[in-house]
């Protein structure tokens, strides 16, 4: 079974630039999560989708972050404009409708300089 796919693996941008990350969840998983993991910390939930609807985006900095999952499968997370403190690993995870056994992708390591 293929896992959660994310791209790119690494990205370096200057502050105030924009960046986008892509995630393809495990086939059949209705729930998709985006997490931000700052070095030395646990992942922090940014947004949760169920199919193409947003379940929880309470911790998403909506002034600069946006995410979509238009067809209920792939998802993109965008940051515009980026700040230095956005440097982190952005993890995508997916799970079944019960929420059990959420599986993570490898993550995208973002460095803002």
């Amino acid at each position: 079974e293929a896992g959660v796919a994310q791209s790119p693996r690494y990205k370096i941008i200057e502050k105030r630039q924009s960046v986008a990350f892509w995630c393809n969840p495990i086939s059949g998983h209705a729930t998709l999560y985006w997490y931000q993991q700052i070095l030395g910390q646990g992942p922090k939930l940014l947004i949760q989708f169920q199919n193409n609807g947003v379940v929880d985006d309470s911790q998403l900095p909506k002034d600069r972050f946006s995410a979509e999952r238009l067809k209920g499968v792939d998802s993109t997370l965008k940051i515009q404009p980026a700040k230095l403190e956005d440097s982190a690993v952005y993890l995508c995870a997916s799970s079944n409708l019960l929420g059990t056994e959420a599986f993570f992708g490898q993550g995208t390591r973002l460095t803002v300089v």
Partner: protein
Amino acid sequence: GESVGLHLPTLSVQEGDNSIINCAYSNSASDYFIWYKQESGKGPQFIIDIRSNMDKRQGQRVTVLLNKTVKHLSLQIAATQPGDSAVYFCAEMRDTGNQFYFGTGTSLTVIP
């Protein structure tokens, strides 16, 4: 605010010994917990889960114990191997919306 936290940030064990990693949670409404292992440069990897109606669950070389009275869970790794070296996170799923909340993590180092 409510949070999931770990007692120890680092743990070193000799190869072959048993490891115990602890986690405290504060939300009594949490009903599902997962332990994840994260190796350097990789995403968190599912190890084992437990529901709040259970006290113990065993996997291959791993056991998770849940004490709802004191809101504490632990991950026991038997016969720890060098490949077990990683950061271990506990994550709780609260009873609304299936969101997972992670603690800070414990870095486990296995000494050959």
